[in-house]
């Protein structure tokens, strides 16, 4: 695309261009990484920030929502910010302002099943998995992350290893408003098992920006539970991309829980490359005020005989806006695919808005696919039933909202995480007043 057909660059796009020019040589990584960055930035520069005329970004117009590009965050301590799920017993890997902070982490380095490296150390090694090959790699936000990636970790769970305690990638933002581009790679080898928490926290009042990417590789017969918890500060803008490649006969469960942030987009790209995998990809969003939360999925059934369930629920108060976009692609040879998607929104105020956009692209003829979407207020007949038993109105509403979200949270297999998330939902309800 030539420059003259593109709209004039926005101040944010201009700032990103100058930032890249100024920091390109100072950013970590050598040789192949520099080439990867340059290539990614060229792609970003050709398209600019995604906007409403780009179908995938229709409801989250970054050109409008991201008025300015903050400078790259400096390394700082994470004092004062407690990551989500701190009550859950876990191995924590702290990623503060986009960089791995070993001093803040408590991962058990003696577990022979876990291999942990700093991101750029990993990228310099000869490994089976090369950075930047996850599904979704051509997305504009991912390109921007690749251009600027500041740090992160690579985690490998060795063949057959069963990691009993969850491992938490605790992304923490601290300090004055700035931008971070953390990048992590997690490879769970054949037959291994891992519960992986990814959390995002930061102070309220600071307009910080996070553009994170997690590349997750799930080996044959592996069992992976990934839980993403977004409890960012109220002025934060966060785009988190998850790119997952799933091998044969794996069991993959994913749950995205979002209560924080001013503008959040969780984008999940999953590709089933071999047969016989079962996957459950779900999430719950509870928002109020003027929060904007977008959950976008692209699920590619590239091999036959895989089952996927996509189930998302959102609760909206105030003038908040939730988006669910779910696309299921069944490739021509992916026969016996079984994919079902459902998205439900509960609107607690007249000013809240929920957009549901399910899409099925089916190129095989022997499949079972379906989707359903609803958006509505609390059922008045249920509310009356509860009140007729003596439960006051606010409490009855709370019970029904809790039940609505609870049905989504039930999808989380780990009991400790499930209970913590349920408590977080109850805490959210209690702030409704």
């Amino acid at each position, binding site marked *: 695309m030539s420059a003259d057909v593109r709209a004039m660059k926005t101040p944010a796009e201009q700032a990103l261009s100058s930032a890249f020019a100024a920091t390109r040589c100072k950013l970590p990584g050598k040789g192949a990484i520099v080439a990867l960055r340059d290539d990614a930035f060229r792609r970003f520069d050709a398209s600019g920030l995604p906007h409403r005329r780009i179908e995938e970004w229709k409801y989250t117009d970054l050109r409008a929502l991201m008025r300015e590009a903050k400078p790259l965050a400096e390394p700082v301590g994470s004092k004062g910010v407690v990551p989500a799920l701190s009550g859950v017993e876990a191995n924590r890997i702290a990623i503060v302002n986009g960089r791995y902070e070993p001093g803040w982490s408590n991962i058990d380095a003696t577990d022979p099943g876990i291999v942990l490296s700093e991101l750029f150390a990993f990228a310099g090694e000869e490994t089976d998995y090369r950075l930047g090959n996850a599904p979704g790699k051509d997305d504009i936000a991912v390109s921007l992350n690749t251009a600027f990636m500041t740090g992160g970790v690579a985690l490998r769970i060795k063949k057959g290893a069963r990691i009993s305690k969850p491992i938490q990638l605790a992304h923490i933002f601290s300090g004055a408003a700035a931008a971070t581009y953390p990048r992590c790679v997690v490879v769970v080898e054949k037959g291994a098992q891992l519960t992986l928490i990814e959390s995002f926290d930061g102070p309220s009042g600071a307009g910080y920006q996070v553009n994170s990417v997690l590349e997750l590789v799930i080996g044959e017969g592996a069992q992976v539970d990934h839980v993403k918890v977004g409890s960012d500060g109220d002025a934060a803008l966060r785009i988190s991309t998850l790119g997952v490649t799933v091998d044969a006969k794996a069991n993959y469960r994913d749950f995205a829980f979002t209560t924080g942030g001013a503008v959040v987009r969780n984008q999940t790209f999953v590709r089933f490359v071999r047969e016989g995998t079962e996957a459950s990809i779900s999430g719950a969003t509870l928002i109020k005020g003027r929060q904007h939360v977008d959950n976008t999925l692209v699920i590619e059934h590239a091999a036959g005989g895989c089952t996927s369930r996509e189930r998302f629920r959102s609760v909206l108060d105030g003038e908040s806006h939730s988006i669910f976009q779910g696309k299921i692609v069944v490739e021509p040879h992916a026969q016996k695919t079984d994919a079902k998607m459902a998205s439900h929104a509960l609107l607690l105020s007249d000013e809240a808005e929920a957009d549901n956009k399910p899409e099925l692209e089916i190129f095989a003829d022997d499949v079972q696919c379906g989707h359903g979407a609803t958006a509505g207020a609390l059922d008045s*007949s*249920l509310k*009356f*039933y*509860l009140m007729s*038993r*003596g*439960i006051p109105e606010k*409490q009855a509403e709370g*019970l029904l909202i809790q039940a609505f979200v609870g049905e989504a949270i039930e999808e989380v297999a780990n009991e400790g995480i499930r209970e913590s998330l349920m408590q977080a939902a109850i805490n959210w309800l209690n702030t409704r007043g």
Partner: protein
Amino acid sequence: MSFLEVKNLHVEVEDKKILNGLTLSAEKGQVAAIMGPNGSGKSTLAYVLAGKDNYKVTEGEVLLNGENILEMSPDERAAKGVFLAFQYPVEVPGVATMTFLRTALNAQRKTRGEAEVSTPEFMKLVRDTANHLGISQEMLRRAVNVGFSGGEKKRNEILQMAVLQPNLAVLDETDSGLDIDALKIVADGVNRLRSPERSMVVITHYQRLLNYIVPDVVHVLANGRVVKSGGKELALELEAKGYAQFQGEAA
């Protein structure tokens, strides 16, 4: 003065007049049956007593123990002792029956300024009653009415009544959709709750239920008002002659 006094009640639903000056009283320790043809206003009366919105009272009053309850919200009425056994109990996904019962009981007690019920006391109360009604522990763990059969839903209503111990129990067509065995279990549950401290209003279309829950008085409702009252023999007369005589009379 009677425990429940409904005086000259006029009620509209979506601009349609359903109750036309209904007057009725019920005493503690008694079971009053309300019979009538479809559309006579039986269920409307039940909903108005429980406080469902969209039911517009244009005239009249409802006194419970001398207190007008029409201005009260449904939960306030429940705390005063009003209980409605629904004709069509709703399914409440995601709320376990035990949690629901306990939340309701404690909410009522809180409104009345009483202490919360202790866990062992509550568990015993629920378990004993559930046993009588043939409600399994597994059903108690499930979400309220979700996946329950028609009969199970009706038994669950009686269980709630037994746990909440109302002063005024209104049973709206509790017999509908029940086979004879289920009907006996439900009637037995209701009879067990007959008490000198409790007034029961049993709404039914058919006389059959009244073989099992024997009323002290029977009121016939037609076109939104009571057109005849009598003893339990009135129910048998209706069974033999039908409602046509009253519908003609009121029109």
